[in-house]
């Protein structure tokens, strides 16, 4: 916060980048970022709960505005999935998954819009001094999504080609069936899987994290005086407006890549 004589920029940023950690066992791995988990689960429940609430009262007659909005969202996603996935009934799994990803990631990204200091101030009042409100600025959250997608794509690869077929493809494509080429094929496929997963999650993380940091810097400037407050406000407004694009675009990209990776897993080579 901008008040206090011991204010300094490093502390400010450090403060806003500290997770609410709950150690559940020995070692670095056995800690839980309570803020990430609670915020994301609440947002997921809020977003999907809203969709469910609207959908539960959905009429096949003339929809009201609420239902029309949800239908627009669902039809938009269904249209995207329809164009990418032609390997079976998309309504069974892939389209609802895309909806989940889009709604959830959008809401998690949207937390970036909340003014950080107001949020941390309010949470400080109830004793939560370290709380990061943007789950997608936590690598754990984005990697959880991308690793889940990786597991799903492996599952669907095996489900559509059989375990033998999948292993055959791991060793025999893309270069050829010759035994000498097996290591190269296998290495290539491993690199593909790893890079897909890395780029999938890091793209989202990087964009949202960078957005968050930029806000911190603008609010830091805002704490330096009247001129800084004015420009901090102005640029913060500009960045927040630009962030609408980033929030939605990143959620959209994440959803599309999810669909593409799962659809690719169904393809036979």
């Amino acid at each position, binding site marked *: 916060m901008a008040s206090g004589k011991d204010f300094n920029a490093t502390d400010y940023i450090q403060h806003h980048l500290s997770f609410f950690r709950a150690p559940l066992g020995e070692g*670095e791995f056995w800690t*839980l970022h309570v803020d990430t988990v609670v915020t*994301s689960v609440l947002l997921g429940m809020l977003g999907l709960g809203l969709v469910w609430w609207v959908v539960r009262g959905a009429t096949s007659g003339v929809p009201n505005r609420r239902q029309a909005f949800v239908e627009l969202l669902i039809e938009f996603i269904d249209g995207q999935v329809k164009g990418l996935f032609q390997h079976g009934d998309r309504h069974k799994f892939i389209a609802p998954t895309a*909806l989940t990803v889009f709604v959830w990631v959008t809401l998690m990204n949207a937390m970036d819009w909340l003014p950080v200091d107001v949020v941390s101030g309010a949470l400080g009042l109830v004793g939560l001094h370290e709380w990061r409100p943007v789950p997608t600025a936590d690598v754990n959250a984005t990697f*959880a999504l991308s690793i889940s997608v990786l597991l799903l794509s492996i599952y669907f690869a095996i489900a559509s080609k059989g375990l033998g077929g999948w292993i055959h493809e791991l060793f025999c494509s893309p270069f050829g069936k010759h035994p000498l080429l097996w290591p190269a094929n296998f290495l290539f496929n491993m690199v593909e899987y790893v890079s897909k997963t890395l780029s999938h999650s890091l793209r989202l993380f990087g964009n949202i994290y960078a957005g968050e940091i930029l806000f911190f810097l603008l609010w830091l400037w805002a704490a330096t005086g009247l001129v800084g407050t004015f420009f901090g406000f102005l640029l913060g407004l500009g960045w927040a407006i630009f962030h609408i694009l980033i929030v939605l675009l990143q959620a959209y990209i994440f959803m599309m890549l999810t669909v593409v990776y799962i659809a690719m897993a169904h393809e036979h080579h």
Partner: protein
Amino acid sequence: MSFNLTLIAQMLAFAAFILFTVKVVWPHMLRAIEARQKTIADGLAAAEQGHKSLESAKHRAEEAIDQARGRSAEILGQAEKRAAQMVEEAKHAAQQESEREKAAAKAEIEQEAARAREQLRDQVAALAVAGAEKILRREVDAKAHADLLESIKRQL
């Protein structure tokens, strides 16, 4: 940037959300949308049907109008013919009547003329007799010469 238990927790949350959407949200919405699409398709089909029946009704109406028009023309023709016929008949009757009347008049005139001639003849005969009487005075016996006088009267 460190990986920890959060990753696992997030994956579980993600799985739960996917399951919820797949099992609960999506089928609900799909049902509503599909029901609406069916309603719309039915409505369109009904509209098409209505359009078709309207078309056929129009067609039938046109036929009926055509028929009525034809029939009215026929009736009009008949009426005209009948009128002409009646005029013809009336003319004919009038002509006949006039001829009959003309004939009657002529007969009457002839009768009248005959009567006049008769009278004239009588008078001339009487005049002649009177004349002859005056000339002949006593020599002529009207009764003795009645036959002769009669023949003279005829010749007049």
